[in-house]
């Protein structure tokens, strides 16, 4: 059995700096995100404290933790969406493919094209049809070429495993789909602008198990082409879909490692307590 490629040993650093033993079998894999000493405040209240984390490219990284631990906040720092809330303050660095996302001359809109997002509650735009919803990101960003738009429409819907279900109904309103289909529509919409990364903020929490399974299957298919970071409060889901898992608690990164290790042999007691359900 092939050993999973291990990330850079520095990835296993805990917030207090002690390094763990790392398995050195292969050269460090490419990293999409490098987060260094990230801290974030909402007004006066600190939401994230000194988090350092590397996200491996073309793999699925899950972020787990109890409610209010800062996982959604952290996710939004990766595409500068936290800036939509007034009076937030941030310290630290976030590098995307080696480039600092937070330099003053970086346009957040460009960041968000490269880093797509899918939300907890699916939100296809109510005034648009299914087809219009998928390509709205391209249209509103100035793409006019009809042929290109149609191609991307089909490709995005195929990638989201939705094409066969809706191909004859593209003119119907986006809201006429079921909950699970709407979420896949939102995924198609995010894929259409060709991001490198897809961030998912508890994408299945409002869905039934069958729809959830479809989304998880989709994640499995997408990971060979996209870097995926998924926040989930469902541990079993994290175990099913992800390659790496980060456990957050009270705004701190408690432990980060391969999913196998986190779930079978966690280093931190807190991690183990959470995994085994002693608190949640």
């Amino acid at each position, binding site marked *: 059995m092939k050993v999973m490629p291990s990330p850079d040993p520095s990835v296993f650093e805990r917030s207090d700096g002690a390094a763990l033993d790392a398995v050195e079998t292969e050269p460090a894999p490419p990293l999409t995100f490098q987060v260094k000493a990230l801290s974030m405040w909402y007004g006066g209240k600190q939401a994230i404290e000194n988090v350092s984390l590397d996200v491996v490219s073309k793999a699925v990284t899950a972020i787990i933790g109890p409610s209010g631990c800062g996982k959604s906040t952290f996710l939004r720092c990766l*595409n500068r*969406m936290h800036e*939509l809330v007034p009076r937030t303050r941030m310290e630290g660095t976030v590098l995307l493919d080696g480039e600092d996302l937070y330099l003053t001359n970086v346009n957040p*809109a*460009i*960041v*968000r*094209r*490269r880093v*797509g*997002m899918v*939300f907890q*509650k699916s*939100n296809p*735009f*109510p*005034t648009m049809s299914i087809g219009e919803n998928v390509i*709205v*990101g391209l249209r*509103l*960003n100035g793409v006019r070429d009809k042929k290109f738009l149609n191609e991307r429409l089909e490709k995005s819907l195929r990638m989201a495993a939705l094409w066969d279900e809706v191909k004859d109904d593209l003119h119907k309103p986006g809201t006429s789909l079921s909950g699970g289909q709407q979420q896949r529509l*939102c995924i198609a*919409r*995010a894929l259409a*602008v060709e991001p490198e990364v897809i961030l998912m903020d508890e994408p299945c929490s409002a869905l039934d198990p069958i729809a959830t399974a479809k989304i998880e299957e989709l994640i499995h298919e997408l990971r060979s082409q996209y870097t995926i970071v998924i926040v989930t409060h469902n541990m079993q889901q994290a175990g099913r879909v992800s390659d790496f898992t980060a456990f957050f608690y009270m705004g701190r990164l408690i432990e980060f490692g391969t999913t196998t290790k986190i779930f079978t042999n966690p280093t931190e007691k807190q991690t183990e307590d959470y995994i085994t359900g002693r608190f949640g």
Partner: protein
Amino acid sequence: MKMKFQTANQHTWRTIKNVLASAATFLSAVLVIAPLGLVFFHLLANGLSSVNWDFFTHLPKPVGEAGGGMANAIVGSLILLGLGSMIGIPVGVLGGVYLAEYGTARANSVLRFVADVLNGVPSITWGVVVYGLVVLRFKSFSAYAGGLALGLIMIPLILRTTEEVVLLVPNGYREASLALGVARWKTIVHIVMKTASKGIITGILLALARIAGETAPLLFTAFGNRFWDHNLAQPIAALPLQIFTYAISPYDDWHRQAWAGALVLVIGIFCVNVVVRILTRGRKISVA
């Protein structure tokens, strides 16, 4: 301690008071609505017979001659509404968008306050102001002046209704659009305002229905006109103005026409209100 309940008499008295209160308040409600019924009844009784084809197509006849109509007044009112809209709609809608999308809490409460106070200014005041600014300067009553006065009245009305419906757009749509890398202003225009479009249009229709019946601000801006005049820099007829002029005149025939004009105006306004009601059916927005 022994609890003493009421005597039977006390209880009966309380029940009687309860019934009386219900009756009295019901009666009040009837009295409040009664004028509506009476006005409608008389509008129909006095006006219906004079509403004919001539009314819609003919100009007013000189004093003393029977017949004639209010064609120019009806068209004039429509023109004035159009001119007013050109000012009232852009300023009102965009201003409302600012309050809903950009404004800070403090700035917004000030602006809302001012807009609400402005809504309470008597409409004749606007007429006086526009007279001073436009009519005196250009030495002529004009459709432009009348349209301006009406448009200024529309601004705070539309601003408030637009703000309210835009605020109702769920934040999830803004986030989803911004997450696609769409610029903020495009998000607001193409996603937020489009989602709120029905509500925005409703607000505009209500404002139009309101100013369609305004007379006072037109008295010395549009001034009124007995003839057709295609020059908008000249006085223009308007339906409420015509009704007023005819109503206070001593001529019976003009009185009849005033009733007819009133009936047409009220029906027009009510049609707009019915349309609004249809548009807002099933939504939370209520028009008090």
